[in-house]
C-alpha cells in the first residue's frame, strides 16, 4: 500500500501536520465544551448565599455549604493518610531496597490497586470501615476509602520524583558523612518535592471529584458534619443526587461549577507555588 500511496515529502508533511492539529483541537475542544456547558449553566446559580447556606428542602433550596465542608474534610483525611503512606512506600522502594522480586511484587500490587474501579473501593470501604470497624457512614470511612484509592497515584509519582534525583547527590551526601535517613530527608526529598506535590495535587483532584467510592462510605446526609463520624454528602455526591433524582438541575449545575472552579484554582495556585519553589532552589 505504501508503494501506491506516494506523496511529495512536502505534501506528506502538510497532511500529517493538519492531522495532528485536528487531533489536538478535538482534545482541547472537549475540555472547552465541558467548561462552557458547566459554567454557562452553573455560574448564574453562584452567589454568596449559594456558598454560605446549607441546602434546604433536599437541595432544592439554599446553598451547598455543608457539602463543601464535607468535601474538604474528606479530601483532607484522605491525603493525611495517603501522603505519608505513599511517600513512605516510595522511599522504601527506591532508597532502602535493591530491585528484587519483592519490590516488583509491591510495585505490581500498587499498579493493580490503581486499576480497580472506584465503585469497588466503595464496596471495600463499606465492608471494612462502615461495617467491620463500625465507623458507619462517616467522614472517616469515606476519607480512609479515598486514601486507599489515591495511594497508587502518590506512590508512583513520588517514586518517579525520587528516582529523578541525580544519584551523584546521594553519593556526595554519604561521602559527607550522612546516614541513609539523613540523605533521604536532607537531599533526596527536598529535590523530589515538586514531583511529590504534583502527585498529591492529582490526588486532591480525584478525591474531590470521586462519587462512587464516597456514596457507599460517607453516606449522603445533608446536615453540616459535626465530627469525624458524621454521615455527610460531598459536592460530587450532591451533584449526582440532584441530577439523577431530578431534584434541581440548576442547583446541580451550580454545584458542578463550584467543583470545576475549585479544582482549577487548586491546580493554578499549586503550579504557581511550585514555580516559585523551583526558582528559589536554583
Amino acid at each position: 500500500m505504501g508503494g501506491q500511496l506516494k506523496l511529495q515529502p512536502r505534501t506528506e508533511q502538510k497532511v500529517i501536520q493538519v492531522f495532528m492539529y485536528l487531533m489536538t483541537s478535538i482534545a482541547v475542544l472537549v475540555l472547552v465544551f465541558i467548561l462552557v456547558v458547566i459554567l454557562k449553566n452553573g455560574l448564574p446559580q453562584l452567589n454568596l448565599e449559594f456558598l454560605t447556606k446549607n441546602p434546604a428542602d433536599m437541595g432544592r433550596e439554599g446553598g451547598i455549604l455543608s457539602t463543601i465542608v464535607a468535601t474538604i474534610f474528606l479530601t483532607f483525611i484522605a491525603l493525611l493518610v495517603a501522603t505519608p503512606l505513599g511517600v513512605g512506600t516510595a522511599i522504601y522502594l527506591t532508597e532502602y531496597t535493591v530491585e528484587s522480586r519483592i519490590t516488583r511484587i509491591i510495585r505490581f500490587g500498587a499498579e493493580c490497586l490503581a486499576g480497580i474501579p472506584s465503585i469497588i473501593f466503595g464496596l471495600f470501604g463499606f465492608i471494612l470501615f462502615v461495617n467491620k470497624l463500625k465507623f458507619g457512614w462517616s467522614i472517616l470511612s469515606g476519607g480512609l476509602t479515598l486514601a486507599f484509592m489515591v495511594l497508587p497515584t502518590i506512590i508512583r509519582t513520588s517514586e518517579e520524583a525520587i528516582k529523578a534525583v541525580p544519584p551523584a547527590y546521594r553519593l556526595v551526601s554519604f561521602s559527607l558523612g550522612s546516614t541513609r535517613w539523613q540523605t533521604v530527608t536532607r537531599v533526596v526529598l527536598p529535590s523530589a518535592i515538586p514531583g511529590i506535590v504534583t502527585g498529591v495535587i492529582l490526588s486532591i483532584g480525584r478525591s474531590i471529584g470521586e462519587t462512587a467510592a464516597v456514596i457507599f462510605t460517607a453516606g449522603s446526609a445533608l446536615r453540616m458534619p459535626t465530627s469525624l463520624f458524621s454521615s455527610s454528602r460531598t459536592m460530587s455526591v450532591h451533584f449526582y443526587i440532584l441530577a439523577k433524582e431530578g431534584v434541581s438541575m440548576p442547583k446541580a449545575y451550580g454545584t458542578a461549577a463550584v467543583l470545576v472552579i475549585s479544582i482549577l484554582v487548586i491546580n493554578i495556585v499549586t503550579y504557581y507555588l511550585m514555580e516559585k519553589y523551583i526558582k528559589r532552589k536554583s
Partner: protein
Amino acid sequence: MKQRGILVRDFSHYYGENRSLNNINLDVYRNEILGIIGPARSGKSTFLACLNRLNDLIPGSRVEGKILVDDQDIYGPEVDVVALRRKLGMVFATPVPLPLTIYENIVFGVRLLGNNDRGELDRIVEDSLEKAGLWAEVKDRLHTSALKLSGGQQQRLCIARVLALKPQYIMLDEPTSGLDPISTMKIEDSLRTLKKDYTIILVTNNTKQAARVADRTAFFLMGELVEIDETRVVFTRPSDKRTEAYLEGKFG
C-alpha cells in the same frame, strides 16, 4: 620522619565475580600528597571508594585483606562508617554542588552532627572557603545558589565542603578532569598548601599533574599496583617496564 597514616595489606576488591583490585599493598604517609596514576578502569577510583567505604553502597561489592586507617581496621565489625567518611573526605571528578546555597553546601556535613551554632558555622564557612582559595570570589554571595558558580569554582567549593568536615585525609578523584588550565592551577596550588595540615590522595589520569604536585606516585594497572615510589623516581627511573611505557604515552 615519615609516619604511616594508612596501611593497605593484601587488599582485593570484587564487584560480583569481577575482581577490580588485586592484592594491593601500600602505605600512605601523613602530610604527603600521594598521586595515583593509571589508565581508565585500572581500579584507582575503586581504591578510593574502598578507603572510605563508599563501595558499600554498590550491590555485590566484596573485599578481602585489610586496610588500617590510624591503626583501625576499617572493615572491622565495630567501625563507625559515618565517622570514617568524615575522616577521609572525598572530592569527586565532576563537581557536584548540592542544590543549596554556597553557605549551606559548606555546612551540610557540620549540620548533620546537629551543630547549628550560627557564629561557629560562619567561621567554618569562611575558614574552609579561604583554605580552598574561593573566599575572595564568593564572600559577597554566600547565600546564592551554588549551582550558579563556574565549574572551577564548584570544584573548589566541593573541596571547601570536605574541609568543613575537619577530615584528616582528603581524597580527590580526578578533581581537575573537567576544568580549564587556570582552574586546575588554582586547585593544585590549594593542594600544596593543604598538605601542611592534611594527608592527600590524588587520583589523576593526567600524569603531568602527579609530577607537579605528588610527593610519591603509585601506578595502578588493571587492578594491580605496579609500583609506588618517590614521584621523582617513578618519573625518571621507573622500576617496571609498564610504568615506563605508560609514562611515555605508549598506552593509556
